[in-house]
């Protein structure tokens, strides 16, 4: 066996496990989901392969439309809230924190790695009727009745911010950290005010990080379901809840598959847009 041949075999051996798992666990399952979304529901609740648009037609009926708008709205509002809170944190860590930057980044990662369901239960402790915030306010005499917080939209947003804040800060921090500090000095020398140098230098250069943050918040935010159930009382139905209900409660595989395909399509469009915009930003810079 020649060295080149052996080299090729080696490459193949290294690639095979990940290719196999990607095909078996990702590509084929998604193709099956797409096939099922065109399948018919038979009288026993099973699915029969065929080609019918029944599921999609059902999906675009008026009862399901609010679920799409709810989900898109929740994802958009969550993304905006995450950016408003996350951007200054990333800015502070990258440009102001000095030698504490590493520590602040490490601290940011701790909640990110803590069990998702434990983090949500921590918020239930704080926001509940007899929870920490209500009892503290009652004890201080600031309120007379406990405020209902669990089951409200702001509570859901708090949960979303909590879940996605580290994911927002990290890419923006990466973009700001790579920023050539001499550019800011140059802007300063040319007489720009801090605000001007932020808007005309820092912010445009951090845009790739902001876009990555949007991608990493918006796409998963469209598919969440535990946060609205636990903190929002499950009142406003979003795509995540709908998919879980259709598969696990109603066993309506074709309709559930159709919802998943639509969610996948929306996500793919966003990902492709992200890659296009990122490329044009990079080309504009060179």
């Amino acid at each position: 066996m020649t060295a080149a041949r052996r080299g090729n075999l080696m490459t193949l051996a290294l690639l095979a496990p990940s290719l196999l798992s990607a095909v078996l666990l990702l590509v084929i399952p998604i193709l099956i989901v797409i096939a099922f979304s065109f399948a018919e529901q038979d009288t026993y609740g099973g699915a029969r392969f065929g080609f019918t648009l029944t599921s999609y037609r059902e999906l675009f009926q008026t009862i399901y439309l609010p679920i799409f708008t709810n989900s898109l709205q929740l994802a958009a509002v969550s993304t905006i809230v995450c950016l408003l809170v996350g951007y200054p944190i990333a800015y502070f860590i990258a440009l102001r924190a000095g030698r504490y930057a590493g520590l602040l980044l490490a601290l940011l990662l701790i909640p990110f790695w803590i069990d998702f369901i434990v983090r949500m239960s921590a918020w239930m402790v704080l926001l509940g009727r007899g929870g920490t915030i209500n009892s503290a306010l009652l004890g201080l005499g600031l309120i007379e009745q406990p405020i209902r917080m669990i089951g409200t939209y702001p509570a859901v947003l708090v949960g979303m911010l909590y879940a996605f804040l580290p994911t927002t800060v990290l890419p923006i921090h990466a973009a700001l950290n790579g920023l050539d500090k001499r550019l800011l000095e140059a802007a300063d020398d040319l007489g720009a005010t801090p605000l001007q140098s932020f808007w005309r230098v820092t912010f445009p250069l951090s845009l790739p990080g902001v876009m990555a943050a949007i991608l990493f918040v918006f796409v998963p935010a469209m598919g969440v379901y535990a946060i609205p159930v636990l903190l929002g009382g499950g009142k406003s139905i979003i795509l995540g809840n709908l998919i879980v209900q259709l598969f696990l409660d109603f066993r309506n595989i074709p309709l559930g598959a159709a919802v998943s395909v639509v969610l996948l399509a929306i996500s793919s469009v966003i990902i492709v847009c992200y890659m296009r915009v990122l490329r044009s930003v990079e080309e504009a810079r060179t």
Partner: protein
Amino acid sequence: MRKVLALYVPAATVVGYIFLFAPLIVLVVYAFNAGRSTVVWEGFSLAWFTEALRDRSLRAGLQVSVIVAIASAALATVIGASAALAVVKRPFAGKSLFSTLVIAPLVLPEIVLAVGLLVATVWTGIPLGYGTLIAGHVLVSIPFSFLIVRAAASGLDPRLDEAAADLGANGSQAFLRVTLPLLAPAILSAFLLCAVISFDNFVISTFVSGVGSTPLPIQIYAMLKTGLTPKINALGAMLIAVNVIVILVVMGRYLKTIRKQS
């Protein structure tokens, strides 16, 4: 106006960090509270911890989670690390497409991946259980092990391979005696993080766990839906402790390499 803006950045940072840590601190502190309250301190007690550890469904969930975490992290680390080595060390066509395919599970909505796995089991008739759980967790963990090992491998000096070859080592000797020992810390980090990802996974587990293989987060979720009990706080406090230890081990190594570079 300018002062307000100058204050906004540090103020937002402070508020942000309080926001991130206050809930966890409250949860941990009141897990030690003797009473049921999460406000009134009724004395120090470990009663809720013993109660959490005695709960049969939580113990069963813990057992499932530990088994699945170890198995899926081992598989995901081997798969992700070999993909990373191929990308860094070997020439082959379609490298960027391959990398995209490996990282894809990180970017796609997790619920879609979960639906895919569930539908695939329905179609093939594979029963839900440990196997499907491990497969699902492997899928979402691979991008992490791939990215960690790829970062470490691309930081290796390529002259090391040349030196090994000059000294008469063949390909596999150079790999086993030079590359692998140098990557061992990164591979260990990848394994630990994959284990945490699996242990914490919620969405995939909701769809592909079977009867008798319900992992801990799903058990906790079921209990949370019926109401919060101090028992869950105690369990949460224990899980936070385990996660923090793992993060400190991994981050400690990471911070050391950063300090060395600077």
